């Protein structure tokens, strides 16, 4: 503690030792702890995914029993959703960069931030403990649909409690960000001068805050039903399973926007930086985040068209679902318009952002197919759905996460990765991804149902393509991660602002000092994306 913080003492150096990390109140360190945890779980669940694809290489049993397959896809889904994608961008990059972008030195409640991380760890331990005892991890699918989740002998209670705790952690992160954005913006930065990533986190946080409690209580009811044997959702003893689905999706549809909105925020940061150009339609992008968050609350019924919900309700939910397409399309048009006539500097982060747009468009458009009652009845619970949500969650949110990693890598560690290698890894990843999931869309249209370890022989060819795609994708992932680790260990030193970005995080040194700024950060005049030497063809 004797080090008087010289400008060149960064937050890594100021204190050393494992405890200085585990009990840190520094948002940057908490963000990095999230990064390591989230990354670890991503690798575990990706391994499970590749194992599933291996099972599906040929019809019939290859490497696992039907029951094991059920448990594997459940574990894969639970880890990917609750331990990877929901905390990914907000808890990692939100934690690290929100205070930097707002020009402050921490979130509003640093201690609650740490608590939120520890709840995440506790939830993860609960989830993993299901592997250790009894008849193993849940086999219900990540949706825990009643009444099966009430009856199965696998460790559903523990898995559900894990989701409950992780939800609490997510709520605390959201709460922290909302207050941070309201209270800690640097003097002179109004809501409309905030970077778009901050806007997207603001919208996301409101979803985390208001939707998560609903699933929390629903999961508690599942626990109570399992423990006391009450027929709350079991039709055999008076309950209504469709009510469970309502409550579950009241949270879980908005949860899709907990994944997508921060990803869109990342893209809105990367694109202006690499086009060296003011973002087109700042307000449209900012407010459409709020609009997506808002409309996202009203569409949950599109997951229940075939479950016995009433016809009129299905039609209303279907119509409402189409409305989400509007703000989403607004964003896409604005991104493309920003690129138009920009001085585009094609670097890996931009490639990831473009891949996001490509993949997310496929995910979004297939989403419209699923949102239309008539079409959904045909493809519900087929591989079309599996393809669709991987395009949204992995091709969209996952790619944006990797893009953010490449974009902010030099800021976080003060080093640069090998660009050539990053390009190669990206290309393999992108090809592998589409090879893995595009066949699934076709398989679904042809009628291959999801959540089975087996399939009819006529689906063989496309399943082989998909499985080979999973190997290509895995290669790309390993190359990317290896390249980043190599960059971290022995990459060239990076300057404070290697991409020539103009949001506030680029004004401080790389890595940033403990308190982020050694002097007052200066707001860019004329909005957060007003690039000084850009050919200014448009002003908002």
């Amino acid at each position, binding site marked *: 503690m004797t080090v008087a913080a010289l400008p060149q003492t960064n937050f890594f150096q100021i204190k050393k030792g494992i405890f200085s990390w585990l009990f840190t109140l520094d948002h940057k360190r908490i963000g990095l702890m999230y990064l390591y945890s989230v990354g670890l779980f991503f690798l575990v669940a990706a391994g499970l995914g590749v194992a599933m694809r291996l099972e599906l290489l040929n019809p019939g049993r290859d490497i696992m029993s039907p029951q094991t397959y059920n448990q594997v896809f459940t574990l894969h889904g639970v880890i990917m959703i609750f331990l990877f994608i929901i905390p990914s961008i907000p808890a990692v990059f939100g934690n690290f960069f929100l205070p930097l972008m707002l020009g402050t030195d921490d979130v509003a409640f640093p201690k609650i931030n740490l608590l939120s991380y520890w709840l995440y760890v506790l939830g993860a331990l609960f989830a993993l403990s299901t592997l250790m005892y009894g008849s193993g991890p849940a086999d219900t699918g990540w949706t825990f649909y009643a009444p099966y989740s009430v009856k199965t002998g696998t460790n559903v209670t523990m898995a559900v409690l894990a989701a409950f705790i992780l939800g609490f952690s997510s709520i605390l992160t959201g709460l922290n960000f909302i207050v941070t954005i309201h209270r800690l913006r640097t003097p002179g930065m109004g809501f409309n001068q905030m970077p778009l990533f901050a806007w997207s986190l603001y919208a996301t946080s409101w979803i985390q805050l208001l939707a998560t*409690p609903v699933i929390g209580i629903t999961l508690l009811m599942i626990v109570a039903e399992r423990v006391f044997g009450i027929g709350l959702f079991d039709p055999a003893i008076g309950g209504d399973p469709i009510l469970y689905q309502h409550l579950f999706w009241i949270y879980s549809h908005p949860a899709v926007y907990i994944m997508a909105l921060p990803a869109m925020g990342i893209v809105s940061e990367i694109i202006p930086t690499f086009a060296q150009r003011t973002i087109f339609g700042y307000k449209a992008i900012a407010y459409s985040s709020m609009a997506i968050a808002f409309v996202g609350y009203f569409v949950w019924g599109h997951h229940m068209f075939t479950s016995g919900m009433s016809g009129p309700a299905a039609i209303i939910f279907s119509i409402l679902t189409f409305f989400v397409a509007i703000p989403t399309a607004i964003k896409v048009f604005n991104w493309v318009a920003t690129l138009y006539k920009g001085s585009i500097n094609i670097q890996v982060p931009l490639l990831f952002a473009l891949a996001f747009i490509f993949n997310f468009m496929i995910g979004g458009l297939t989403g419209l197919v699923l949102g239309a009652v008539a079409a959904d009845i045909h493809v519900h619970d087929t591989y079309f759905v599996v393809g669709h949500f991987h395009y949204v969650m992995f091709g969209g949110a996952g790619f944006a996460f990797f893009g953010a990693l490449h974009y902010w890598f030099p800021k976080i560690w003060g080093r640069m990765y090998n660009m050539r290698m990053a390009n190669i890894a990206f290309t393999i990843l992108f090809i592998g991804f589409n090879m893995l999931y595009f066949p699934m869309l076709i398989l679904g249209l042809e009628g291959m149902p999801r959540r089975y370890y087996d399939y009819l022989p006529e689906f063989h060819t496309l399943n082989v393509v998909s499985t080979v795609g999973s190997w290509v994708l895995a290669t790309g992932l390993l190359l990317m991660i290896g390249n980043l680790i190599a960059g971290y260990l022995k990459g060239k030193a990076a300057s404070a602002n290697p991409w020539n970005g103009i949001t506030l995080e680029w004004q401080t040194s790389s890595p940033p000092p403990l308190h982020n700024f050694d002097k007052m950060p200066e707001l860019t005049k004329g909005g957060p994306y007003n690039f000084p030497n850009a050919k200014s063809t448009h002003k908002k």
Partner: protein
Amino acid sequence: MTKTDLTMNHAFVLPNSGHKFDAKASKMGMWLFLYTELLLFGGLFIVYMAYRYLNQNAFLLASFELNVWMGTINTIVLLTSSLTIAMSITALQKGDTRLSIILAFSTILAALVFLVIKYFEWGAKFEHGLFPGMDHYNSLPYGERLYFYLYFFMTGLHALHVIVGGIFIGVVIRLIRKGRINKNRISLLENSGLYWHLVDVIWIYLFPLFYLIH
């Protein structure tokens, strides 16, 4: 590492530092947390409404098992405790620490009274075998079982909140004694008050739902 030495060993501190105490941030955080509580009970409320609609007669019959008077007394107790904690805040704002502590303490007392009455109410249901899993309960038609299940779940969760709120206020009293909460730094007392009022608001809905709708 405490907040102070984090800021102390650095020459430059941002005016909008997250490590500075900010009463408004603290209040806003509390309100946001209350929203999550509202939606937590809201989920149960939706379940109640759906099942009430599906089992109207059963819910009606079952509701006659509850004792309206005990419910009414408990409502009055909670409302009064809300009054005392609100007055406790006013007292501290006016600088009267002693009165503030006494009033906050009466809120905890009221919480205890509430819990004791609840205990007797639940005890009576147990004697009648109405707790989920007991014999009488299992012999009831499904609709009535749902009613009692929801009754125990919702009032139980509420009682849990009463306990947490009571502990929160207890901690606050200690901090007032130590001077850590005072006229100029009143946020924590206000927040415990907000939490307590929320517990009251939830009861305001639970009371008619279970006791009054005949």
